[in-house]
């Protein structure tokens, strides 16, 4: 990653002035730093996806099937009939431009084709040519063009520069959702075997081993055992997580990223502490699954069908284990899939019960049909009823802000639950400026499967608006920790912060919970979940407190 421009260089290079050349005459440049590597044929084969072969997006020849234009045309037609969203969004855009500067990739790269309207026009231009008479008649002057190799490469390039965050859809007067257009476009590309490896290989892993990272059952258990070791050292108490347990009350599913890499691992430790606490104190029986060991769903970034194939495991496992309902961990797109797709795709979940928290008696009626509850809802309810023994002072050295992840924000509306939990587990909390939080939140820059290593320049550019907002609260309030409820965030935001806003670290909400939670019989807690000495941390925090706190 030595060719990654410095933050100053990147900022200096961003111009939001489009060229004078008509956009149709500007060919897409697929370049390193922005583009992701092509999918591994073994992964495509395992999934039964078409056209597995070794290829590279930097090659001239993408080794497409001979009739690829026909495949795209027919796939397009089929999707226009199957998805009203797609058809309506193809027809009604007036190109008012309200969406243009709402996209983080446009803000960060200045590339005009990253304006949501133009990203959609890439498909619309083909739609006009193939499916409307007026469009075909007037041709280029009216924004219609036939599908060809250059157009296909342009699609590839810009459909993998969209993180399906839906921020544009909030500002569009007709609710046109570029995520929907990107989803359709990626489905079409997948018909030709065009996917990026960072998506298709996790999908293949997830299909076979149960999670994106390809962690096999015994290894999954080993990893949680490691966390138990750490927790025993930190608290003096060893949680014993349960796996694949039949007859448990609740099945817990979370993204595998949290058992794999820091700082997500600390969030996983927070979950383990919480479940241990609830079992010891209230007898609540929660089980993890090694089969449904992935909350995330990179299938969502591939096709509706692939999403369904991966998601099916959650209900299947809940049925096999005979649990009452499912609890879901902190994850972004996972929750869009659960909230808006799962029940429709793989339900009805009539073999499960209406989710009720037996400890508080709260019935989660908002999940009456899907029967899956977000852990922020669950924990907020526990705290509200005073069921957790919390000592927030162990988080006193933190000045926390909260990053709303795109999908729980605009595909679910989860805003106040995590904020409540943070406020009850931390002393210092500061929201970022209004235009960058809640429904107007900005993407981390790496969503929808774009969190690869090779597209770092794109990721840093796309994360600029988020980083800029963090910088504001860092300078204003001395914020040193950004909380989030998304595993991809936890994986990518540390890089983004060290690039744009050093000194700000990243945490999951349940890491904060874990640090605050007292376990019965624990020894004196001198370390946080990161095994850092609290005395030292709080010492350094006090040094700066006078200047920064209000």
């Amino acid at each position, binding site marked *: 990653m030595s060719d990654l421009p410095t933050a100053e260089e990147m900022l200096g290079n961003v111009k939001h002035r489009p060229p004078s050349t008509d956009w149709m005459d500007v060919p897409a440049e697929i370049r390193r730093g922005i583009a992701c590597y092509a999918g591994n044929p073994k992964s495509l084969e395992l999934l039964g996806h078409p056209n597995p072969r070794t290829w590279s997006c930097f090659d001239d020849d993408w080794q497409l099937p001979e009739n690829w234009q026909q495949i795209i045309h027919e796939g397009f037609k089929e999707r226009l009939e199957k998805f009203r969203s797609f058809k309506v969004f193809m027809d009604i855009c007036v190109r008012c431009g309200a969406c243009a500067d709402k996209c983080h990739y446009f803000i960060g790269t200045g590339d005009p084709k990253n304006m949501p*309207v133009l990203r959609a026009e890439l498909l619309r231009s083909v739609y006009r040519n193939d499916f409307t008479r007026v469009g075909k008649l007037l041709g280029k002057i009216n924004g219609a063009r036939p599908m060809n190799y250059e157009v296909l490469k342009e699609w590839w390039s810009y459909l993998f520069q969209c993180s399906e965050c839906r921020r544009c859809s909030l500002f569009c007067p*007709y609710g046109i959702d570029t995520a929907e257009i990107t989803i359709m476009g990626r489905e079409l590309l997948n018909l030709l075997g065009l996917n990026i490896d960072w998506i298709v290989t*996790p999908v293949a892993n997830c299909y076979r081993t149960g999670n994106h990272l390809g962690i096999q059952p015994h290894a999954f258990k080993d990893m949680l055992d490691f966390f138990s070791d750490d927790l025993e050292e930190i608290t003096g108490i060893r949680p014993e997580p349960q796996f694949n347990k039949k007859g448990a009350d609740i099945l817990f599913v979370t993204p595998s990223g949290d058992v794999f890499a820091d700082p997500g691992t600390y969030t996983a430790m927070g979950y383990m502490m919480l479940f241990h606490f609830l079992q010891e104190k209230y007898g609540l029986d929660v089980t993890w699954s090694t089969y449904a060991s992935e909350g995330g769903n990179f299938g969502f970034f591939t096709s509706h069908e692939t999403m369904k194939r991966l998601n099916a495991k959650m209900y299947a496992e809940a049925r096999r284990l005979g649990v009452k309902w499912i609890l879901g961990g902190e994850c972004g797109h996972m929750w869009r899939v659960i909230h808006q797709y799962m029940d*429709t795709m793989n339900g*009805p979940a009539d073999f499960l019960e209406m989710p009720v928290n037996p400890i508080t008696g709260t019935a989660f009626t908002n999940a009456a049909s899907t029967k899956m509850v977000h852990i922020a809802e669950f924990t907020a309810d526990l705290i509200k009823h005073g069921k957790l023994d919390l000592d927030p002072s162990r988080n006193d050295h933190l000045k926390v802000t909260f990053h709303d992840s795109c999908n729980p924000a605009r595909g679910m509306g989860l805003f106040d*639950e995590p904020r409540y939990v943070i406020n009850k587990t931390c002393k210092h909390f500061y929201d970022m400026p209004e235009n960058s939080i809640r429904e107007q939140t900005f993407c981390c820059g790496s969503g929808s499967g774009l969190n690869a290593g090779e597209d770092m320049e794109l990721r840093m550019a796309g994360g600029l608006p988020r980083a800029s907002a963090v910088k504001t609260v860092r300078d204003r309030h001395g914020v040193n920790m950004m909380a989030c409820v998304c595993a991809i965030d936890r994986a990518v935001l540390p890089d983004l912060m060290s690039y744009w806003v050093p000194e700000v670290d990243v945490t999951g909400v349940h890491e904060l919970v874990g640090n605050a939670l007292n376990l019965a019989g624990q020894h004196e807690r001198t370390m946080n979940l990161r095994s850092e000495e609290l005395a030292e941390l709080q010492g350094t925090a006090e040094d700066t407190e006078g200047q920064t706190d209000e």
Partner: protein
Amino acid sequence: MNKRYILSLIAVVVLFLIAYLGVEAVPASKWLFGILIPYVALIVFVAGFIRRLLSWSRSAVPFAIPTTGGQQKSLKWIKPSTIDSPSSKSAVFIRMLLEIVTFRSLFRNTRMKLKEGRVTYQLEIFLWVGALAFHYAFFTVLFRHLRFFTHPTPLPVQLVENLDSFFRMEIMQDFIQIGVPGVYLSGLVLLAAVTYLFLRRIFIGNVKYISLASDYFPLFLIFGIAFTGIMMRYVLKTDVAAAKELTMGLVTFRWSIPGNVSSIFFVHLFFVSVLLAYFPFSKLMHLGGIFFSPTRNMRTDTRAVRHVNPWNYPVNVHTYEEYEDDFRDKMIEAGLPVDKMPEPQEASAEDEEPAAKPEEPEAGAADAATAPEEKE
């Protein structure tokens, strides 16, 4: 120069010439421009509009995908954002109503600027104001024109006329007399709004970049309609009674072309006809489309009530049994419960294969796992 708007402008000028020169050179063509074309245009409009709505409604709505613009309804003590995250039918109705009547989403509009290395936002209200002004002025003008198709003129129309001409102004010169028929605000606002919407397409770089001929054409056409209308009323003083005789003839099917209707009237009518006929095949269909937008017209109670996908079909999944077959030995060794214990005799023979398989995806997994480190 930008070909897209020049060509649109030329198209509207040509349309003007066709109608103007047509009725000037061949008086009989007044029947064409005054009677036949308006009928054809209306039929095309209605049929085309309905056809488009039907084509949208024929497409399935497989998933409930509302954009949630506020707090969901979850725990009792957390206040939900009723309108922006509507969980009931009536709340969806209010959301849609506000969207259609006040352009609520557009009201959120902001303008981004990079300032000293920071992304900043400022209020950008002009597009919203311009769009509201345009649509309401257009609607008022349209409504006022009911005067030409009804007799006697209904009270609401008269009321709107009176409101519209609330601000009296008079300019009395030899060459121009404004104020003698009361000045309608809506016509002027419409003209101003259309001009603004055009100018922003020319002067805002990004908007210019995305604008197509089909974005300019309706603006020029509507400008032409408003302009010819205003000319007739205030400058050329077209005989309104004669014009009404013609338009009433259209409604009552007793067609007549009164001799003293000016040529500009036929141009006006022709422009309107073109707009009507063009409407269903253009982006102007956003008028109907907004009602069909799944990100706005669906409830957000998607976990509480199951949405049914009409084309949901079974897919290949990797079942737990297959999974356990792949990893049974490892699971047993790790102390994980299994559904099926291996049979002692066959164990060795059967084991070979599943044991060999994991190697490949594991390699893939390793790729995925090590890649994050590589970037460092």
